[in-house]
């Protein structure tokens, strides 16, 4: 099977987010980068599917030149090829522009994809829509929030977690699926994997950026909770004070 996974380069934040002076981005001075957790699992899933069923996998990103790092990271865990849609500068594209660029790349692919994977939503923007837009433009079925994928005779059996259990969808390939973290535990790359990734094929191009229709004006840090934690004590001696609170809350 021929699998495509779409990922997005995002910063690895700590306990505190700091904005740039123009408030249009997160200050990444001290930060490393990764891809969104859902997408990481998507890449792992792609590698597993190919291990199981044979075929080829490709990872794609729309991002700045530095995003090649993320593509190589995913090739290090076993993805075969990469497509880099290079955006000029770090400002992110809005969901419609992103979807348009991805669709164009998919349509130019030499072989059609059987399965196109996305993360359910990106860790930073959380727009929840690129996959669905891509599917619409390609006329493909799309299922979201998937925590289990099985392939049989050209059909995908997909499991989605809901309250009380799992909903099952069965769709024919080709299809677009968004996955959620928890579908698998991604592997760490091996050293040989990393070294091979450097030599794997990467196709780069620079699509033109359309005007944003969901236009970011600025970023704002949410107000703090304003809470002042009541210190119940230090170490195990605090236990009685804790139990007093638990009792007040009606839990003991």
């Amino acid at each position, binding site marked *: 099977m021929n699998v495509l996974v779409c990922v997005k380069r995002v910063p690895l934040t700590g306990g505190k987010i700091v904005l740039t002076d123009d408030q249009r981005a997160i200050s990444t001075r001290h930060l490393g980068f990764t891809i969104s957790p859902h997408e990481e699992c998507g890449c792992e899933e792609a590698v597993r599917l190919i291990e199981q069923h044979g075929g080829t996998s490709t990872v794609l990103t729309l991002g700045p030149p530095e995003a090649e790092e993320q593509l190589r990271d995913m090739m290090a865990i076993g993805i075969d090829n990469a497509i880099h849609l290079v955006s000029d500068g770090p400002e992110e594209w809005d969901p419609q522009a992103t979807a348009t660029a991805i669709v164009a790349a998919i349509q130019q692919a030499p072989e059609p994809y059987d399965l196109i994977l996305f993360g359910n939503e990106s860790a930073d923007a959380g727009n929840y829509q690129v996959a669905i837009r891509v599917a619409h433009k390609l006329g493909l079925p799309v299922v979201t929030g998937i925590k289990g994928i099985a392939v049989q005779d050209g059909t995908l059996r997909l499991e989605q977690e809901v309250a009380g259990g799992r909903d099952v969808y069965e769709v024919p390939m080709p299809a677009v699926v968004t996955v959620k973290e928890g579908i698998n535990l991604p592997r760490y*790359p091996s050293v040989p994997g990393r*070294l091979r990734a450097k030599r794997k094929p990467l196709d780069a191009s620079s699509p033109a950026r359309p005007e944003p229709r969901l236009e970011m004006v600025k970023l704002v840090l949410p107000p703090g909770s304003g809470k002042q934690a009541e210190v119940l004590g230090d170490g195990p001696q605090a236990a009685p004070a804790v139990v007093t609170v638990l009792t007040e809350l009606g839990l003991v």
Partner: protein
Amino acid sequence: MGLGNGARNQKIVVIGAGIVGNSLAYHLTQLGVTDLTLIDKGPLPNPGGSTGHASNFIFPVDHSKEMTSLTLESMRQYKDLDVFIESGGIEIARTEERMQELTRRMAAAKSWGIEPVHLLDPDEIKDLVPYIDERLVLGGFYTPGAGVVDSLQAGTIMRERALEAGMTVQANTEVLGIDVERGRFRRLRTTRGDIEADLLVIACGCWSPRIARMAGASIPLTPMVHQMIDIGPAPRFANTTKLIEYPIVRDMDTNMYERQEGTGLEIGSYAHRPITLQPDDIPSIEESALSPTELPFTQNDFDPQMEQALELMPEIVGDESVGVKYAINGVLSVTYDGMPLLGETPEVKGLWSAAAIWIKEGPGAGKTVAELIVHGDSEIDVFESNIARAYSCQRTRTHVVDRASEGFNKMYGIVHPGEQWASDRNVRLAPFYDRERDLGAVFYEGAAWERPQWYESNAPLLEEYGDRINRREAEWDSRWWSPIINAEHLAMRDRVAMIDLSAFAIFDVTGPGALETVQNVAMRQMNVPIGRVVYTPLLTPSGGFKQDLTIMRLADDTFRVVTGGAFGMSDLKWFADHLPDDGSAQVHDETNAWTTLGLWGPRARDVLESITSDDVSHEGMPFARCKTIEVGPVQVLASRISYVGDLGWELYVPFEQGARLWDIVAEAGAPHGIVPAGIGVYGTTGRLEKCYRAYGAELEGDFNVVEAGMAWGKVKDEDFIGKEAHVRHREEEPAAVMCTLTVDDHTSASGVKRYMLGKEPILTREGQPLTDRKGRRSYVTSAGAGPSIGKHILMSYLPPEHAVVGAELGVEYMGERYPVTVATNDSTPVFDPDNARIRS
């Protein structure tokens, strides 16, 4: 300067709760300090500094005696705290050049008394490290005593002990400012309020420069990146019960190390491009994904290392099931010269530094700084780490970054003892510089000065002296050296030489209390007539050597101190710290006001008499006298002493007139066959033939005056630093005796003649190391040619039973033993033993 016993009663604050701060705090309380506060901006037990993640293995053997001493002491403490796991460590060689270097490591181990150590062949390495591809390896240097430590745990235990002894700890407390009044630390301002104290120690690792700057002081280090990754779990380590069961491997030629860490393998690198950071580049704790000193990994910088690790340990690194679980650009502190920064800052009294110290020296440095604070002296002499040593141009950010970067990729490098820095040269230039350059001077750097080591224009001397010049056949021995040095030496001894001595540090002690000051600091009698030059040791409180230098009495209350450039600034601070409390004396740094030209050789007086009408005859100007003379248009302070052991003078002239003096001397000397001679003569050949001891080589805190063979005359009645100890030393049998030896036969097994360069172990003829009753090994403190006597000269402390003229011993060099013989066992020179030349 320590506060003496008074320190116990004073209030001390330490900033930084990493391995250094914790150890320092513990040792301060052990020494009786009761009012102590430890502060860190981070949480405990892991405030987020380098201690929290740094690679924690220790290889004890180092070429530096001082680093080795600090490391051995640290290992002792780690073992005491039960946090040391002995795993052994192997430095592997992939090249022949490295194999030679490993024999030097073996020799260093012998010189410092670290044993057992072995040289292994590839099969033996494979036995110990089965997952290595031994076909890539030519051999290895094995230290079974190497191991890993839990430095976080060690620091925690030490901190808890200090707490039990009454220390206060304030975590999560950030320093906002430091108040200095009248040049003395007064107050610390923090996010939790102000703290007034008597003494403040900055033990903040990579943040230290930022903190010091708040007080107007400098701590010349830079944070740098050192990459490390953890891969695992490795099938071979799956059933491991210990953190480490296999020896640590240092792959020296690739600047990498690999070591087991539980079920995984840690791979570290010093091979990548040097990445320096500003202390302000280090993120806060909240901003960091992991910690402020575990920065995001830059994959590109590590790629070549992955290949090399894969090549060396394919079983583990090439296993597809072994994942890269952790990868960081770790942050550590690096200085401009590779040595730590310890002691009171010269800029602010009461402000101390305990910075640029790695895990392997941490506890040792903590104890040492505690001793310096409380006693003003320490068991381990850390003169090379004294923060006061830096000149202003060495404290600059540019210099620190340039040298730290240049030194970074040499971490596991093969560094020749004479190797010169390449970056940031030509900063301090003598007024003679252009003339020297035109004479083909090969410039070496000393105390940031460009000094001619020898002059290519003297090449014709090689022919003149023919066979009397020994050539060195082996490449290593002749690297950073030239036979021209020996030729200059012979020309000086035959005729006369002029030598650039501009690197001297010079300072004047003045005022009504000047005599009292120098009398207290110097061992020798300083109440001498005006115009007398006194060569004197300075002692530490425990009677070891703090320095040796000359002091000229220029007036009743003016004494001019002249000392070597290397530790000139440390010496300046020593004098400044010992000025009388009543302000009756001052010390002024006159280094930049004067330049010095040395003029020595049998024809030196001929030359000088031809350019001055002042009386410089032997009667008119005996040895060890100084006076101002006129040389043409220039007034010169002439000092009749000689570090090269020949007739002559040090000529001091105002800096801006130096070039003129040079020209006058050169012209006057021409008919006498004057040659310019470099530091190769001044620092090595000249003084070795006279068996003159040098500070930093023969003379250091470890050895006392009697052992050094310098206890001439009687002890002066006046008090001086170290007097009590010195008197005691005179009453004891010395544990070791400074001797001068000559090499009998230089021929190696392959027929090539080899020439020792220094620090080699002295052994019995049968190859047994020599150890004195204080446990100190005999090693070559200085080595070099003695062209006038046609011998290669080595100096070494020997246990008394071997310190016998004619005793037959051995020296180990590059893995082979060469016969040596004791030539003198006191300060009697091997050349001109009656000192007739100097006194002519």
